[in-house]
């Protein structure tokens, strides 16, 4: 590797070395408690699937270049040069970790492996070896933010095409179907680009007679998946600017765990509230703003807690409240809530070509679902939904994977 590139990578590494990061890199005793917390190791017990192994790749570079022992005696101890082989190891470490942070729950020192892997991801960007798909998707999102006028008409046309389906689900009277650009709306709903993320929620918001408006931008933040802090902020900023321009009271994020975590916790204080759609549905049900028919949906239902919205953002009881309004037959997975096992699709992994890895390392999640005996697995995250559907097919699980919004929309009682 050229000296200039190495210097650039070390500068990037240095940019991440704040006080908490130094703590995470310094205090690990390699006790190995984290290994059993990882969904990948729980499914395939290989050393490279342990959080501590993944962290060690980064930690050894830290020891080599940022600790006096490594600087003076690089041949002693366990330090690692930055070279092409190390970059490959960083890729394997960063992209076998979903950033679910379950290991952090069990680590006696609370080491945040996702934070450590954010160094690996940043170095991969600097080395131009980050996953091309994620970078491309992040750039596409940013482009839409920069030149909305070029894409607005096609987006409006796409939304218009969905309206018939919203009307067929929600048969009540309303002068709105999928409102756009409504200044002063209570809620700016930020969906994903697909119809599945818009139609059920539009039905629910209309049934609640909500004054809402649909965002022109998709919620998903590929900048966060690829670990680029600047692109993460640029992608989020599109939505923030739109919310401020429309003077909305609340930004409601669709079923996308990372999008919710970014907007709720990683963009600083904003002049609007941030909610997850599960929180909004629970609120409507508690306030009798929508009515649902209990047990219209047949069969035992379990819930998969998405790591980013549940463990890392605290949306834990609201989905359960919603499900308990929909069914008398709800059952928990074990473990659950903030201790739930990751499905293996997060961190952008579902967008990459890694099907063998995702199949093998999803085994623990498959067993967890099978043990419930449920016919339906509900979840509140796009990545989880995609990965659970993938596992369902690969393991012939015989369950149905459903979004919470779809279950609620299909249970609406319309007066």
């Amino acid at each position, binding site marked *: 590797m050229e000296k200039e590139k190495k210097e650039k990578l070390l500068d990037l590494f240095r940019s991440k070395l704040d006080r908490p990061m130094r703590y995470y890199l310094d205090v690990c005793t390699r006790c190995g408690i984290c290994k059993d917390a990882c969904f990948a190791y729980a499914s395939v017990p290989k050393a490279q699937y342990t959080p501590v192994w993944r962290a060690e790749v980064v930690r050894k570079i830290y020891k080599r270049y940022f600790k006096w022992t490594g600087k003076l005696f690089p041949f002693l101890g366990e330090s690692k040069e930055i070279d092409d082989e190390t970059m490959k190891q960083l890729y394997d470490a960063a992209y076998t970790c979903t950033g679910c942070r379950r290991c952090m729950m069990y680590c006696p020192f609370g080491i945040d492996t996702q934070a450590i892997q954010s160094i690996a991801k940043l170095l991969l960007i600097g080395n131009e070896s980050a996953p*091309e798909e994620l970078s*491309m998707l992040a750039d596409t999102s940013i482009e*839409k933010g920069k030149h909305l006028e*070029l894409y607005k008409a*096609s987006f409006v046309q*796409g939304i218009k*095409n969905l309206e018939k389906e919203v009307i067929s689900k929600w048969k009540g009277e309303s002068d709105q179907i999928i409102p756009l650009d409504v200044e002063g709306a209570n809620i700016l709903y930020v969906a994903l*680009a*697909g*119809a599945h993320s818009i139609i059920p929620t539009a039905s629910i918001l209309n049934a609640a007679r909500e004054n809402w408006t649909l965002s022109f931008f998709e919620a998903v933040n590929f900048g966060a998946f690829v670990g680029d802090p600047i692109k993460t902020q640029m992608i989020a900023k599109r939505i923030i600017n739109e919310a401020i321009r429309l003077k909305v009271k609340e930004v409601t994020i669709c079923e996308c765990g990372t999008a919710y975590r970014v907007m709720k916790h990683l963009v600083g204080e904003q002049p609007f509230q941030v909610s997850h759609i599960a929180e909004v549905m629970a609120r409507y049900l508690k306030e009798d703003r929508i009515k649902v028919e209990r047990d219209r949906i047949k069969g035992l239902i379990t819930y998969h807690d998405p790591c980013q919205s549940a463990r890392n953002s605290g949306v834990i009881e609201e989905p359960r409240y919603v499900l308990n309004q929909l069914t008398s037959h709800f059952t928990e997975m074990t473990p659950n809530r903030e201790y739930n096992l990751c499905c293996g699709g997060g961190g952008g992994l579902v967008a990459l070509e890694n099907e063998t890895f995702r199949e093998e390392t999803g085994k623990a999640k498959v067993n967890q679902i099978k043990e419930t005996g449920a016919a339906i697995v509900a979840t509140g995250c796009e990545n989880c939904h995609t990965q659970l559907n993938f596992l369902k097919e690969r393991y012939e699980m015989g369950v149905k994977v459903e979004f919470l919004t779809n279950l609620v929309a299909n249970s609406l009682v319309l007066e």
Partner: protein
Amino acid sequence: MSDEIKVSKTMDLKGLPCPQPVIKVSKGIKEIEVGQILEAITTDPGALSDFPAWARTSGNEILKTEQESGLIRFLIKRAK
């Protein structure tokens, strides 16, 4: 949905949710030569804004967008 543009490769992306169509197209376009045309058929409404934004950032050119019976058809020229 007919035209006289010569298509070198067709990708059937029906039923795939966002962002799969744009990921697959970004890979598929590399399998044709510069100047050739890729046809992509999708059902994802998000593609209507995603594809043009991707084309602009990747330096490719969308020659035509057609919609019929829930299908969206793009003709994309590999420009570089």
